[in-house]
């Protein structure tokens, strides 16, 4: 079953595996042809963007998805592993099942955009380009796959596989403490992965496909309460094991988001990673965690989800406020952005914890917006770092006059980051707060979380002041303004930020029906 095929292969497979083709091509290009390597590597994200536009054009926003395969789009279902067996009560069946709905589509668009931007930002990589771009493309495949997969096993494979290129990309092309950061990132995520794996396997054995009577890894089937054997490990409703499984899964995802107290890998990884990788990391990778919660944890464990909304909201609140407070105390520009990411992902979590349609809308939208905004911010950090070779906030000053274009770019991103109306994050943050406010159990937490708005403004403005205002230190007299390539990588993102800030409806319309469906599942509406 392949929908929308191109050359007989489904469009989602194309979009996911295009970079792999790129990798294969790159492998055969000799190392010395650096330019060729760069441009070849650039083609594939562009193709992905084209394909995601095709997706967007052909996407029917009225189909909800979430738990019904019929209402997923561009579905590809191929049997991947199918072993009739005596053990495990019959067939082991793992499908190559991909499809998208209103939750994954924004993420796919985001990934393709950020993937392209990342390549542009990678042009400052000066050594061993070949290896870099091969790994980079591999990373993009992993991310895309995670957002397309509808089979838990497939999802897990993509989820974990992406660690490898990330490890190398941070570890080889990173900053001074790159090895430390890389291993920390790797270990943390892998650690989260084992919790996920346990839960996934547990789910598999608890499931019984109502149609075939077999265990299944199919997420959509697992969302059907009838598909969970009541006498099994994770059977029943609201049992301790189910809660435990939810928590385990949550930890797996929370590490990626990252949620306090699992966040400490993030500042290190961000600071050490090269610009493009920071962009990818903040732009896409973090979203995988929150996406996973919405895609897997919530619909499969609605009972636990409802029960855990309060604790999750507490964590979200801590993330928002604590992240902002930590950001405030940073002296390193990149670290500051990293902590601000923690804070902003807190909004996403708050939206998710709200369990309301508007909150979910806000969460998905915020995921997208944070992706674009933080990408610009990290790009900006990279831009300044390329020129000054330092990221110390106190090393700068007065750059606003010296680099007016740069200032214009970054100030828009900064204002977007503090949720300024007219820029996209405002709408998503508002949604998140509205959602949190709507859910009475977490209302108080939401109100406390709004403190984050102020704190965010405080440290962002402070940063602007430290870098751009005041007098220009002597040593930066030679610094040059942002160049064409850098503009090319940032301006489109800024345009997205602004356009979505003013006309969010096309984007929101993409996800509303899915989000509403998700809400229905969680609260057993319909």
């Amino acid at each position, binding site marked *: 079953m392949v929908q929308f095929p191109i050359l007989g292969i489904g469009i989602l497979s194309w979009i996911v595996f295009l970079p792999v083709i790129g990798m294969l091509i790159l492998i055969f290009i000799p190392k010395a042809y650096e330019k060729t390597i760069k441009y070849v590597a650039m083609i594939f994200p562009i193709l992905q963007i084209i394909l995601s536009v095709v997706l967007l054009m052909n996407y029917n926003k009225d189909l909800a998805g979430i738990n019904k395969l019929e209402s997923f789009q561009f579905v590809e279902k191929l049997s*991947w*592993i*199918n*072993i009739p*067996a*005596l*053990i*495990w009560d019959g067939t*082991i069946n793992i499908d190559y099942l991909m499809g998208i709905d209103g939750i994954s589509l924004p993420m796919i668009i985001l990934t393709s955009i950020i993937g392209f931007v990342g390549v542009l930002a990678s042009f400052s990589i000066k050594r*061993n380009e070949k290896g870099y771009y091969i790994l980079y493309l591999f990373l993009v495949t992993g991310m895309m796959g995670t957002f397309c997969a509808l089979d838990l096993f497939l999802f*897990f*494979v993509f*989820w*974990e*596989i992406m*660690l*490898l290129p990330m*490890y*190398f990309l941070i*570890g*080889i092309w990173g900053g001074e403490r*790159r*090895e430390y950061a*890389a*291993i920390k990132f*790797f*270990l943390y995520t*892998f*650690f989260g992965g*084992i919790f996920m*794996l*346990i839960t996934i*396997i*547990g789910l*598999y*054995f608890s499931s019984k496909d109502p149609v075939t009577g077999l265990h299944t890894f199919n997420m959509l089937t697992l969302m059907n309460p009838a598909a969970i054997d009541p006498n099994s*490990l994770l059977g029943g409703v609201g049992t301790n094991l189910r809660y435990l499984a939810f928590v385990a899964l949550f930890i797996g995802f929370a590490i990626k988001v990252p949620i306090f107290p699992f966040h400490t890998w993030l500042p290190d990884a961000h600071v050490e990673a090269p610009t493009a990788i920071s962009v990818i990391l903040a732009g896409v990778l973090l979203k995988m965690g929150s996406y996973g919660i919405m895609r897997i944890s919530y619909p499969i464990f609605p009972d636990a989800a409802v029960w855990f909304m309060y604790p999750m909201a507490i964590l979200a609140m801590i993330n928002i406020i604590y992240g902002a407070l930590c950001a405030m105390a940073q002296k390193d520009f990149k670290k500051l952005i990293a902590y601000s990411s923690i804070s902003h992902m807190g909004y996403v979590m708050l939206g998710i914890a709200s369990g309301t349609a508007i909150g979910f809308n806000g969460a998905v939208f915020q995921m997208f917006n944070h992706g674009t905004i933080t990408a610009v911010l990290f790009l900006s950090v990279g831009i300044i770092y390329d020129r000054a070779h330092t990221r110390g906030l106190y090393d700068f000053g007065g750059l606003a006059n010296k680099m007016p274009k740069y200032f214009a770019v970054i100030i828009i991103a900064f204002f977007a980051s503090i949720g300024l109306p007219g820029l996209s994050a405002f709408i998503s943050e508002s949604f998140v707060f509205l959602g949190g406010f709507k859910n009475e159990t977490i209302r108080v937490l939401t109100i406390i979380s709004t403190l984050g708005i102020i704190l965010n403004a405080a440290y962002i403005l402070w940063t602007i002041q430290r870098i751009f205002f005041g007098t220009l230190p002597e040593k930066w007299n030679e610094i040059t303004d942002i160049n064409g390539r850098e503009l090319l990588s940032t301006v489109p993102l800024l345009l997205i930020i602004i356009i979505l800030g003013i006309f969010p409806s096309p984007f929101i319309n993409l996800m509303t029906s899915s989000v509403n469906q998700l809400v229905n599942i969680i609260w057993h509406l319909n």
Partner: protein
Amino acid sequence: MQPQILSKITYFLPETVLIITLIVCILADVILKKKSLVVSGLAIAGLLVSGYFVYLQYGMEASLFKRMIVIDPYASFFKFLFILSTIFVLLFAVSSKEFRDAEHKNEHTYLFLSLALGAFLMASSVNMLMMYLSLELVSLTSYVLAGYTKKEKRSSEAAMKYIIYGAASSGIMIYAMSLLYGYTGTMNIYETARILTATGTVSSPMIIIVLIMITAGFGYKISSVPFHFWTPDVYEGSPIPVTAFLAVTSSAAGFSVMIRFFATTFLKSSAFVAGSWQIIDGIKWTEIIIVLSVASMIIGNFVAVWQTSMKRLLAYSSIAQSGYIMLGLVVANQAGLTAMFIYLVAYLFMNLGAFYATMMIANRLNSDNIEDMKGLGYRSPFVSISMVVFMFALSGIPSTAGFIGKFYIFSALIEKQMLWLAFIGLANSVVSLFFYVKVVKYMFLMKPDEGYDSKVQYGYGGYVMLMLFAVPTIFFGLYFVPLVKFAEASASFFGLR
């Protein structure tokens, strides 16, 4: 000679072929002095023929030599494994610098063959005497092999430690077997099971101490904690092909006999049906295995973190890996057995691959120190990337066969609702990342010291060998149907099911 003994002699063909090859090799060695390739070729040919016969008898069940050994898919599975690994190791030996430098050129060939023979017998023994004998055959050969490069100080030390430790362990085992013999009056494990089942609940201290002491014998072969102490020293001191052989073949042979011993002797003989292994009441062998397995995983992984020698690191990794495999035995059902099989196949490829890559590097660098591999990834990308594949496979990253092995093991555990054990195992695989990734780190993330720019040179043979290990490692990670089918089909004991 009594005809009934030899009536099924055709079933014994694989072993017979091996013995013949062994003798032919010895003769060939004597006649064609120093033409090692010929002898190795002969040995490989013999192994392939033997493998063909194993293939012919795959799926059959029969007992031979008055129920000394049996032919069953279980044994055949292991035989395939042994043949494959022996061929690989023979190929290793061809390109091994240590072997090239050793003054005797061809002894290793027939020593490997006899080791394979011993392993064959281990896999098919159903009599404790045969188990002991075949285990000793394997051990004795290994002792000799461990000290193969006898000009090397470390090699002779390794051989000494190995033989003392091995002799002690097997002595303890045969002592325990004698006690069991005294209790049941038979050495045949099926008989033993029948008698034990008939006794009803067996919980005498005798059974416990016997269990533990027999486990000591097997445990030393699979290097499980606390019977693992020889492993790091011997691995370090032995030539790398031997180490690889010990880590893969010898340890798999240990598993073959151990699994069969436990899964036959201590199961209710009346309940030899598929999927449900009913353990004789009161015999807590799964608990013992749990302790051993957890201890192996923890100690193996934790100590490996400290290693700077690649061989030693792989030694501790083997200890940890045997811990994972034992988890499959703990489950005590068909699924666990299948999982172990899958793991063993994956282990074969990834571990041999790791050893091969190590050997190639060590051949050039004259050192297997991880720190000497700094920046090797840029000088010798192919071997380094292969090494990365093996390391990640060993640590169980998805899309490698290693992950599939772990996945099945932990699935089996979770299905049995042994959640804690699954968690411990998985947490340990996080720990294992530390040292596996350390290798990767040195190769790719670190810059070499000044003036350190030696490349690893290898011909096409090297490429092919690395591909032989790396490709299946990844292929089975992505498409494991054949692997699982093979394992499932093989997961059947004689008389069981």
